């Protein structure tokens, strides 16, 4: 992917660029709204990550001008406030998604992926990671030729992990995907289901696929 990051905070901007470059994406980082607008006009990006509070020109102004000029590049907004009014204003101005600081980088990556895919077209009906294969149409899961029987929650969990195969998926993302609400309490409501899923997917195979990444969440990968 070719991404444009418009962010004035040097630490966040640097981290985002590094994160995406290490995930083998092209990433251009500019620090103010005017430069951001220039870049967005002159070059075709796959997605723009736009901070709302920017020197020169606010993120909301940049977004409105882009949309008025007919530039339809997907935009993910970043903000520190996250009030309802602000979110509504951002989405009304033509943003595709919205993330409140502080956020997990994995979530930003997942959301950028999602807005790019959405603008790209229908997702594939099947997902494959290593010898694990999931069919969205028939809702069947097969590993190494053996069919695995999953509950709907487990299926949904696995499907989500496989959508971001190789990348860490945070608890917050999983909670929102499974139950449409985040849960910030100390109780790990996801772990139970991950353990069950592990029991079904990894049991009997020598390589486990579902990994816990300390402090970050979970990931499905072949190694």
């Amino acid at each position, binding site marked *: 992917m070719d991404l444009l990051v418009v962010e004035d905070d040097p630490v966040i901007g640097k981290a985002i660029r590094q994160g995406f470059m290490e995930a083998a994406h092209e990433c251009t980082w500019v620090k103010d709204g005017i430069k951001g607008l220039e870049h967005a006009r002159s070059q075709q990006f796959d997605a723009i990550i736009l901070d709302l509070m920017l020197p020169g020109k606010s993120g909301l102004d940049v977004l409105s001008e882009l949309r008025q000029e007919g530039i339809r590049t997907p935009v993910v907004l970043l903000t520190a406030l996250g009030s309802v009014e602000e979110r509504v204003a951002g989405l009304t101005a033509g943003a595709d998604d919205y993330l409140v600081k502080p956020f997990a980088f994995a979530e930003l990556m997942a959301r950028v992926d999602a807005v790019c895919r959405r603008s790209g077209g229908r997702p594939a009906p099947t997902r494959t990671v290593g010898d694990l294969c999931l069919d969205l149409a028939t809702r069947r899961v097969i590993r190494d030729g053996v069919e695995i029987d999953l509950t709907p929650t487990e299926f949904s969990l696995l499907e989500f992990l496989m959508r971001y195969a190789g990348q860490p998926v945070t608890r917050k993302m999983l909670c929102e995907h499974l139950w449409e*609400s985040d849960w910030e309490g100390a109780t790990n409501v996801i772990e139970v289901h991950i353990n069950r899923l592990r029991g079904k997917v990894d049991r009997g195979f020598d390589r486990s696929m579902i990994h816990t990444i300390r402090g970050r969440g979970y990931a499905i990968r072949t190694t």
Partner: protein
Amino acid sequence: MQFAQLKEIFGTLRFRLTAWNTGVVLCVVVCALWGVRESVRFSLWLEADKQLMEDAQEIRLTIEQLYPDTEQIYKVLDRKTISHTHRRLYVRIFDEQHRLLWTSPNAPAIPFPEEDSLNNSRKPISHDDFRLIQMQIDKPGRPPWIIRIGSSFAPLEADVANLTRLMLVVGIVVLMLSPLGGYWLAGRATRPLAEIISTTARLRPNSLSERLAIRGTQDELDQLSITINSFLDRIAVYLIQNQEFTANAAHELRSPLAAMQTSLEVTLNADRTESEYRETLADVLAECENLRVIVNQLLLLSESDTGRLPLGIDPITYDITVEKSVQMFLGVAEAAGITLHVTQLAEANVDGDPGRLRQVTNNLLDNAIKYTQPGGEVWVELFTQNFPAPQAVLRVRDTGVGIPAEDMPHIFERFFRGDKARGREKETRGTGLGLCICQSIIHAHSGEIDVFSRQNVGTTVTVTLPLSAHSPVSPHRPPIFEPLTSTALRAQMMKQAAEDRKTAEEKLSVSRNPAPPTA
């Protein structure tokens, strides 16, 4: 500059009180004086008319008595008019054909008014400067002569004019004295106000101990002082709470910061292997997550304190909110060896923010499971009632460790944590803001939250929310489900979830607002 000063003086309460006072006194005095003058004038006129009438009667009697000695009559009349020169009394006598028989020499050379108007009215009329009266002799055997007499009312008007002059003098004196008195009185009345102003002006947010003096007169100004004092008391209490809250919040934030600082410092002290660095970074990340949760909770409380807690006001299906929370915690309950029952889940629409209400339900379920030992049970029921108002009632009951009686008054306090040993160790770690946030959210929805607990028996939390005006009230709906064990409910919900899943498949990729912070 000078104009501004004048404006300041004219704008003072004292000046305005004086002006009003003077105005009112003047009006009263002018009205009173005018009234007195008019009534004096009226009675003088009445008196003069009575006198005139008596004169006419006297003349009639004289004529009746002395007739036919006309010489004598005229002599008597002449004498009478002379004795009343100060009011210019005059007499004219006519026969029945209105021919003049006799006139007193002082009679004015003014034409008499129309016959009709005088006729035998026996009532005085005014003409020119004179009051006139006519009377006819009607005694048998006497000629029906007509007597006309008149007297000037100039002396009377002169008396009234004297009185008016006197009253003008009185009025001017009052006009000069009343502003002075008024100014003095207004000064007396507003002096306590000046004290209140100077005391209040001295107050600063960091020194709110001073209070206004109460004079003990129980008047309005005392009431004002009492009101201001109680307002100051409330502000002081609020400030103390706020300072405590800030101190507690800082303390809460310091713990993760200290943890991060220490682990980073220690890691940097020596060369480490990659896996050791990874471990440190993961620790720091976990502490960051803690910080994020605390900051989100503090933000939510601060928003609710200032009444800015953003809430949707759309009617939402509360039963679905509760159901989703139950789904979220079914797995946890099962893993903890606790049976989660949903005994009743009545349809209930309330106005509010589904995310926030969900947060409350999540918290209640989490607490119930957290503080219940393996083998225990948690019951959830949602029903509607019409009394005392149409409301939805959510009840979460557990067979857990309960809350000690001495802790009960504090459970909604910020950062209050009960005895650390009462739950399972690791998972009971929290910020101490959960219940407080629940209360804030429920209050923002015009609802109530009550906790009933007995130690070692269990805890029941009841949340009541006003039903949406748009929702039909269905009192005492029979339970949708038979009392269900978590497994049975799970099966039922999974079936439902499976049906929904097809449409919900791309849920995350559909543009949705990030969920609000959860306690």
